[in-house]
């Protein structure tokens, strides 16, 4: 199929960017979106032009590195997939596809479609861990009984790959779905209780410091999340936060 790509080009973090049109042909329905961009870049390199920079790593939907706002939605029009798992058969011959970087003040553009998402790492570092004695007499994790329901919910929350699509989709650029998934995966388990109070307070504080917006419960994040992280996690984070605040 033949497509017209409208792509955000930006030389570096300090430069002003702009949209540039690229006609492309020879795109197969079985190609992933990133493979389609590989084809474009090959053409650009052959013409002696600068290739379009974009983030990617595993290309199998598990690392969260690929991004892209495609036709106004993070990871494009398909549901529960990352951009590397989005197939070109979701588009039609002759389509115009608008490709932009994820937009958030906390996600500055580094070059073209690549944004710096280390703000999410810093939220994780501020509390998304448990302290375990690993000096030799470590207790086996399975020695602590956990009911199936809690274990499942914790596992669901832990499937968040930190891609930032929730932030990109949200009209407020809020990172509450990400943060709540990271809070929940510990809050649901006995191992997470010791640091529970400081964890939620520190992670919310870091989230605010990074300049993410305030959630208004539109639910856009949940729809666009490639891992189907639920809004229930945000409600849980809110409960954790309020009870932590009451404890002082």
């Amino acid at each position: 199929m033949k497509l017209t790509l409208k792509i955000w080009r930006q030389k570096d973090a300090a430069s002003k960017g702009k949209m540039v049109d690229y006609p492309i042909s020879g795109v197969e329905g079985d190609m992933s979106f990133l493979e389609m961009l590989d084809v474009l870049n090959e053409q650009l390199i052959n013409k002696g032009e600068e290739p379009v920079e974009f983030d990617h790593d595993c290309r199998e939907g598990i690392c969260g590195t690929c991004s892209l706002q495609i036709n106004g939605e993070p990871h494009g029009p398909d549901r529960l997939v990352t951009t590397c798992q989005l197939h070109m058969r979701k588009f039609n011959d002759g389509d115009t596809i608008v490709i932009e970087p994820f937009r958030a003040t906390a996600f500055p553009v580094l070059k073209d479609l690549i944004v710096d998402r280390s703000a999410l790492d810093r939220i994780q570092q501020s509390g998304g861990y448990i302290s375990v004695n690993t000096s030799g007499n470590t207790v086996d994790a399975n020695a602590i009984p956990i009911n199936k329901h809690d274990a499942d919910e914790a596992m669901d929350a832990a499937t968040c790959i930190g891609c930032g699509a929730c932030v990109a989709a949200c009209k407020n650029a809020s990172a509450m779905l990400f943060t709540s998934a990271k809070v929940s995966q510990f809050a649901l388990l006995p191992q997470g209780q010791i640091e529970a109070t400081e964890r939620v307070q520190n992670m919310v504080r870091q989230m605010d410091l990074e300049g993410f917006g305030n959630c208004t419960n539109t639910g856009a994040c949940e729809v666009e999340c490639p891992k189907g992280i639920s809004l229930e996690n945000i409600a849980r984070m809110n409960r954790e936060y309020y009870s932590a605040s009451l404890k002082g």
Partner: protein
Amino acid sequence: MIKSSLARKVVMALSGLFLVFFLGQHFVINITSVIAPDTFNSWSHFMGYNPLVQYLLQPILIAGVVVHFVMGFILELQNSKARGVRYVKYKGDANASWVSRNMLISGGVVLAFIALHFYDFWLPEIAYKYIESNPEDATRYHAETVHKFEPIWRMVLYIIAFVLLALHLLHGFASSFQTMGVNNKYTPTIKLVTKIYAIAIPLGFVFIAIYHHLNPITH
């Protein structure tokens, strides 16, 4: 605590729920203006002269409204800053409802309405009681209210405002429960109650406005 995003959200949700409660109470009083004018007169007189209502509940209500819309503007301002550079193409309707994305528009119209409503009813009351120092008259409220709805433009403005209020509540009522951390097996019920309340109450106010417009008091 007010410094954090979650604290600001709680303020928004609690003030919103408080206004939802107030709106229900206001409706119960107003509907008597249609079905029982004498009751409307006596209830209005009670609300207007009871010191507890006048000096405690009324200031709390005004504070509730002010806190709600000021916090709403602050949140929206921060949220707009958090996006920074706008998308060239943003498909908001692909993943979220119009009402949830436009709380500032629906809220803004309601704010403009509240200003009109103050001018219509609150300022004349204050003038009547505290500036002109008129004597108490427990029978005047019904006729005054009906007169207000004689001009068609006022009826139309009230209808527009209540349609926008309905849109505001369609998202806001259920949303405040999510904000408070309630998302469980009761959530479908909360969403149903939200739909019923958000449509029925504003519709009731619209009915009252139309009724009084169509049934003027002729002397």
